[in-house]
């Protein structure tokens, strides 16, 4: 079967599944699934850039996605003047001091000869800098967090449209990826995996504890939206007219009071569908742009070089390619795409809750998407993201139902039955793991394998 036929079949299946959910559950649920599918698709593209193009194993996708969430908060929330007055300058000064300490440290490391004197001065600079920064930073943070802690207690953001944060989130993620890549690329290939695992845990810990920045576990709720609010469009006469026209056949059966009530409930439902469609349009345009960029890049000379490096580092190096530099570039690019998707996700949620970032959901699920979809194939990753997210969401009711069915012969109220029913949700992890291992083992290319141009040279 050719790849394009497979792609058509895959996306077709997805469309049918979504239609079934829309008809039999509700269109609201179907669109909610679709929106998250698209965001997962962007995230999977980012991971595919790293793994599929270059064989870089990033186990910290969660951290980069969360950085996008931070960007959403910092860009869109209103400036909180009182907090800035209380400790803004302190935080800024400590930031500058941090830069100075890092600069001094690098200067010492580069300029001085290796030896006890350099080690000693490094230790003095780092420890001295640390304590000096804490002297400025701690009181500033205390002052910020003491300012109206129930409602704000943080610096707020820049008060700009939240859609800008999608770019900023990408930049944040790229910055962190650059640092991590600088440290761990060029060493053993699994060091990058360990380093990304570590940084993602630390980023989440920071978001939970640095209340002055993102309110920590108190969460930031009510983020501004790039699309209209449901309540606002429900009273819009044009929208009501439009809903009436759309559902005219259904409304024909009602008269008088009943018709008004029926129309009202249709308008309420329609408004939420309309908002979700707006989101879907925005997300889909990002997905399409990223996808086109990825496909073009992979088909370009740069893409050929990257694949050559992946397939044989030694011969690529012999051809004069700088492998570590290319790897760093790809790692930064891929992380930036994940950061964009993270910002989109927080925009959709309308709130930033650090405690919801779980590695299984944000790191490993995305991996399953890329591997099942087809590593190295951009469209494949997107397809994988769509299908896996759909399965992930629908597996819970299906698993519960299966478990009900499997345990119906057991006697009511037995401990084992209750335990099995309670644990059904954990089967999702198990199934995802088995899916990932099976695909890796028996069909390493995934649903849409990478297309390689094989030209046979005639002798």
């Amino acid at each position, binding site marked *: 079967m050719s790849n394009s036929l497979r792609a058509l079949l895959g996306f077709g299946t997805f469309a049918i599944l979504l239609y079934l959910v829309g008809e039999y559950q509700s269109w609201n649920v179907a669109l909610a699934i679709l929106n998250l599918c698209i965001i997962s698709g962007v995230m999977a593209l980012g991971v595919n850039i790293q793994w599929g193009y270059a064989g870089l194993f990033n*186990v910290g996708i969660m951290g980069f996605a969360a950085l996008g969430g931070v960007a959403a908060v910092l860009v869109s929330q209103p400036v909180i003047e009182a907090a800035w007055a209380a400790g803004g300058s302190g935080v800024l000064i400590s930031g500058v001091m941090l830069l100075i300490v890092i600069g001094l440290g690098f200067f010492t490391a580069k300029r001085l000869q290796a030896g006890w004197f350099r080690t000693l001065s490094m230790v003095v600079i780092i420890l001295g800098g640390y304590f000096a920064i804490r002297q400025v930073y701690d009181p500033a943070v205390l002052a910020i967090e003491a300012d109206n802690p129930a409602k704000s207690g943080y610096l707020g953001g820049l008060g700009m449209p939240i859609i800008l944060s999608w770019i900023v989130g990408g930049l944040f993620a790229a910055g962190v990826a650059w640092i991590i890549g600088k*440290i761990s690329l060029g060493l053993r290939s699994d060091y990058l*995996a*360990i380093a990304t695992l570590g940084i993602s845990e630390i980023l989440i810990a920071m978001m939970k504890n640095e209340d002055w920045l993102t309110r920590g576990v108190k969460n930031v709720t009510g983020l501004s939206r790039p699309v209209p609010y449901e309540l606002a469009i429900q009273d819009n006469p044009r929208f009501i007219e439009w809903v009436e026209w759309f559902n005219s056949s259904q409304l024909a059966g009602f008269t008088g009071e009943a018709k008004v009530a029926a129309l009202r409930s249709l308008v309420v439902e329609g408004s939420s569908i309309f908002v979700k469609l707006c989101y879907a349009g925005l997300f889909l345009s990002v997905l399409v742009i990223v996808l086109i960029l990825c496909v073009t890049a992979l088909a370009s000379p740069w893409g050929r070089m990257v694949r050559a490096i992946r397939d044989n580092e030694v011969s690529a190096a012999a051809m004069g390619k700088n492998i570590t530099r290319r790897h760093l570039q790809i790692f930064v690019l891929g992380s930036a795409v994940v950061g964009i998707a993270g910002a989109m996700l927080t925009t959709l949620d309308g709130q930033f809750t650090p405690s919801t970032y779980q590695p299984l959901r944000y790191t490993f699920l995305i991996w399953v998407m890329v591997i099942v979809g087809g590593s190295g194939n951009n469209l494949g990753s997107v397809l994988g993201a769509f299908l896996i997210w759909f399965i992930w969401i629908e597996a819970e009711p299906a698993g519960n139902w299966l478990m009900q069915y499997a345990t119906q012969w057991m006697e009511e109220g037995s401990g084992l039955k209750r335990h099995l029913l309670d644990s059904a949700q954990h089967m999702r992890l198990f199934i*995802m793991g088995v899916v990932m291992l099976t695909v890796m083992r028996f069909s390493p290319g995934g649903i849409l394998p990478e297309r390689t141009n094989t030209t046979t040279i005639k002798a």
Partner: protein
Amino acid sequence: MIDFLNALTLFANFVLIPGLAYGSQLALGALGITLLYGILRFGNFAHGDTMAFGTMTVVLITWYFQSIGISFGPLPTALLALPFGIALTALFLILSDKLVYKHYREVKAPPIRMVMASVGVMFVMNGVVRFIIGPNDQNFMDGERFIMKARAFKNATGLNEGLAIKSSQLLTVVIAIVLVSALFWFLNKTRTGKSMRAFSDNEDLALLSGISPQRVVLVTWILVGALATVAGVLYGLDKSFKPFTYFQLLLPMFAAAIVGGVGHPVGAILGGFVVAFSEVTVTYAYKKFLTYLLPTEYAPDGLMQLLSTDYKFAVSFIILVVVLLVKPTGLLKGKVI
């Protein structure tokens, strides 16, 4: 002088003893990682969940023993259940090797493929553990809790500060010493152990000398299962058993293995203690300690804590970064690339 002794006791109670116990637990965990690194040549991301799996089997068997009235006197019943847990975990690991890793070894896949496969195995193990025992905290410590209680120490010495030693802490250190000595004896003195080291040093040469790779792999997985289960059970006895915490132990254990030098058993032990003591000393609040040592007018106001406990992962991470930047081979020369 009394102040000095008080400060010393305080330090021993909150830094030295917990650090020693935690270090032994990490060392055992890192030993498992480093053995796999050395012999099968990949970083095993499923190690934290292997520990969770092993501990889970031990917890379940302990509960069974308790229900039929078997106990180990003053020692925790979990120790009786330990051999069974090790056997089950080793079986599970050998099964995972047969089903997953063997294929990648045969096709000589790059190490990163093995790492990814281990992530898949981690997923499966995580699911199994959560399915069987659930994601919540389980306490399975029984027997005598303390060897020395803080109050008894205070009464005996007349100091203000108490020194408490939990039996789980002493057990951890003793068992770690016994297990590590047995492991080193095995690796250095027995025929199988020597063949494992030979295999780790130079695979081709080892194969040429007639060493059976299947046997080496099998023994490695059994050792890894034993180390992981013991480390997990000791950690669980000392703190409590929660599957997610075990997943999070992955980072300190990897840091320990890399600090010591990958594939180097002595290095793993050294690394375990380096990571554990850095974590404990950096996150300890020194306020009371300094109040004893310094004259009253210099007594500190703040907590005097270098880093809040929420950032304890950051410690292992920073250690990792420093090692990668300064000495990628680790303290004792390990394998790089």
